[in-house]
């Protein structure tokens, strides 16, 4: 047991964490946009399932990976629009409507799966695409630059999201709508247009998150493939204090601890499996509790905005 934890093991764990964090990142970054503008979309997991199925179906039938991602994005976008319609146009209670969207996605993805495919199948998904030169860098190369395209996409998304939120007029509008929609409205910023945009964008990214599972990481689809992953993503948005870089950090910590607990079990360290599998969740909760006092959520989060009383 003395040489268990070697450098190569650590590299493996980190590469594993980078991979595992991918679906969380897409979903959580998308959800960050929605929540910054004041919409809590609890339907992420359902949208991911629909995205996962759509992408899987395209690849299963045609082998077209890009087409799979595009359909997943489109389906996610449409589900995001549905959520926006319910929560923005109809001003329905966001928690309830999100759960509705989740259940819809859960049921609908399974229904389509039963009707169109009907048994568990595998496909060949996105292959590992090492980035020339960078992938040869010792240590960092294998961790960061020997992944598949959708993994890279998730990490490129983080600085883009940061830039949009902090450096663009759109980001300013999103933050204002989430903090004080009335003020934004009086300045000619359309609250509903912004919220439609962020929630649809969130839906689209959740769809891609699903695709990253079904055609890049797991290459399989079955009922409830995500297994609640979308809800963890929402928790990560809170942990990240609604900031993309912190969401990235949270996703990586959660994924790393998950990879670590698997490794700990595999090498046979005497820790009961029940305890090991709990650690990522305990960690997330602990961090949430600590960070809750640190960061304030957007003031208008989960509140519908109606100009006329």
């Amino acid at each position, binding site marked *: 047991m003395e040489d268990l934890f070697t450098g190569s093991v650590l590299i493996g764990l980190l590469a594993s964490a980078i991979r595992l964090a991918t679906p969380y990142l897409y979903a959580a970054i998308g959800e960050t946009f929605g929540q910054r503008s004041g919409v809590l979309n609890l339907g992420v997991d359902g949208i991911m399932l629909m995205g996962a199925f759509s992408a899987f179906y395209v690849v299963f039938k045609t082998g077209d990976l890009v087409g799979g991602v595009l359909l997943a994005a489109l389906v996610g976008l449409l589900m995001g629009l549905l959520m926006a319609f319910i929560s923005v146009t109809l001003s329905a209670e966001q928690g309830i409507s999100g759960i509705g969207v989740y259940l819809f996605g859960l049921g609908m993805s399974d229904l389509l799966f039963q009707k169109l495919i009907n048994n568990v199948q595998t496909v060949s998904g996105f292959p590992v695409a090492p980035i020339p030169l960078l992938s040869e860098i010792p240590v960092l190369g294998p961790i960061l630059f020997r992944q598949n395209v959708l993994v890279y996409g998730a990490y490129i998304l983080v600085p883009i999201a940061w830039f949009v939120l902090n450096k*663009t*007029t759109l980001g*300013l*509008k999103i933050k204002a709508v989430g903090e004080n929609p009335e*003020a934004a409205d009086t*300045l*000619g910023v359309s609250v509903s247009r912004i919220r439609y945009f962020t929630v649809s964008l969130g839906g689209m990214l959740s769809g891609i998150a699903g695709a990253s599972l079904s055609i890049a990481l797991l290459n399989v689809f079955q009922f409830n493939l995500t297994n609640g992953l979308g809800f963890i993503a929402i928790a990560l948005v809170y942990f990240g204090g609604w900031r993309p870089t912190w969401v990235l950090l949270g996703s990586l910590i959660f994924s790393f601890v998950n990879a670590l607990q698997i490794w700990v079990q595999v090498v046979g360290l005497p820790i009961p499996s029940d305890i090991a599998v709990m650690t990522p969740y305990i960690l997330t909760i602990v961090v949430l509790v600590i960070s809750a006092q640190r960061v304030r959520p957007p003031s208008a989060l989960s509140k519908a905005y109606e100009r006329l009383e």
Partner: protein
Amino acid sequence: MTQKQILPSGNPRIDRLEMQGIVKRFPGVLANDHVNFDVNAFEVHALLGENGAGKSTLMKQLYGLYHPDQGQIIFDGEPRLIHSPRDAINLGIGMIHQHFMLVDSLTVAENVALGLPSTRGIMTDLDRVTKRICELAEVYGLDVEPDAYIWQLSVGQQQKVEIIKALYRGAALLILDEPTAVLTPQEVDDFFVTLTKMANDGHALIFISHKLHEVMAFTHRVTVLRDGKNVGTVNTVDTNKNLLAEMMVGRPLNFIRNYKTIKCGNPRLKVENLSALSDRGVPALKNVSFEVCAGEVLGLAGVSGNGQPELAQVIAGLRPSTSGKIMIDDENLTGSTPMQVIDKGVAYIPEKRNVEGLIKEFSVSENLIMRDLDQEIYSRNAFLNMGNIAKRSADLVKTFNVKTPSIDTPIKSLSGGNAQKVILAREISRQPKVLIAAQPTRGVDIGATEYIHERIIEQRETGTATLLISEDLDEIFALSDRIAVIFHGEIMGVVDRKDATLQSIGLMMAGEQPPETKTAE
């Protein structure tokens, strides 16, 4: 196109704005009934009226938030349709809302830039915005720090941000919705200096208010709205406070207020070295001590957010104190539950009447008897005695002049003034020993304010010790026998009404020790 005059801000001037025959209906209400209104450059035009008279509705139509059912809006002779705030902004209209439309978590520059196209396409151009803010600030004497976050600013500074925001957007006409409600007297003076300068430079200003002395001191013309109609537009120099009040209410009002010097040996309510924390866990009250005698109104003046709600809540048993004690007639009330406090004879009119005072969805009668439900005339063995409840409620509604369609109407359909009367009826019909009245007339129209004031004075005559917490100095001066001032959770001093001046109280509200205290120490 005629060439427009340019204001010092660089914005084109609006010489004349007219609103003609404006009609606006809401379900069941005629909010504006053929209203005519106009304002010119170089003018401050006051728009006066009680709550619900239609002032805000009229102005929201000018600002594009509502759309008139009939009538037209004419800029410098050209009729215009205003579909949205954006249209209004493009026409040169700015609105300073009563509740500031600022995003706390953003900086001044970000708030100003919000919603405007950037010179750098999708990227923000905050450095250029900052530069322009500084220019405007200098021209109009508005000192603001562009990089400061809104939550770091005082209320007065936030108002300056609002003005800059409007000017930045090219405002030549400013709508000011009750702009002084949140300011200290000194800040009000500052504010008027700014506004006067703006009017002299050629801006057109619409000043919505119900504070008659401000209207008299500072405007050129006054338009009074009542029940959605324009009941008259007059030159300010040709009118006076009493005439304006009569126009607003439609009948003569009592402005009789007399105060007395109280001498009491044993105070009824005694607060000693009381400290407490705010919701955020920081000290909100620091060693607060004062006494209120039977038959006395003690006014507690102070700018919003200096510990007033916390003080009321601690006395009412709703918030724990960290030290000190509260005595009523030598009985210790510290740490009592709200029920025990009620039983000791304390009545409480809370500041947030829709949150702490009333259940909005419940009916008038349910709200009226809520506190006394356990008494035998209302319930026996957990069953409500509906007959007694209805009878008692009907009595109270009549006695306290609550305007409601029925006792079964939900509170949320009542106006602010009538909702407040329901609380007043519930609280003072109990003949309390102590009355804590927090902002009792906030958001309440003049008629109801007059009524509530009369009732508070009436209680004083029957020997109730009243603590009147108010941010409205007119109210403090009108009702109090003595005035205490709270600042940052500390009592700055207590003075007799006869010795108090607006100036001295205002200084204390801004945190200065009164001269007596200074010499005493």
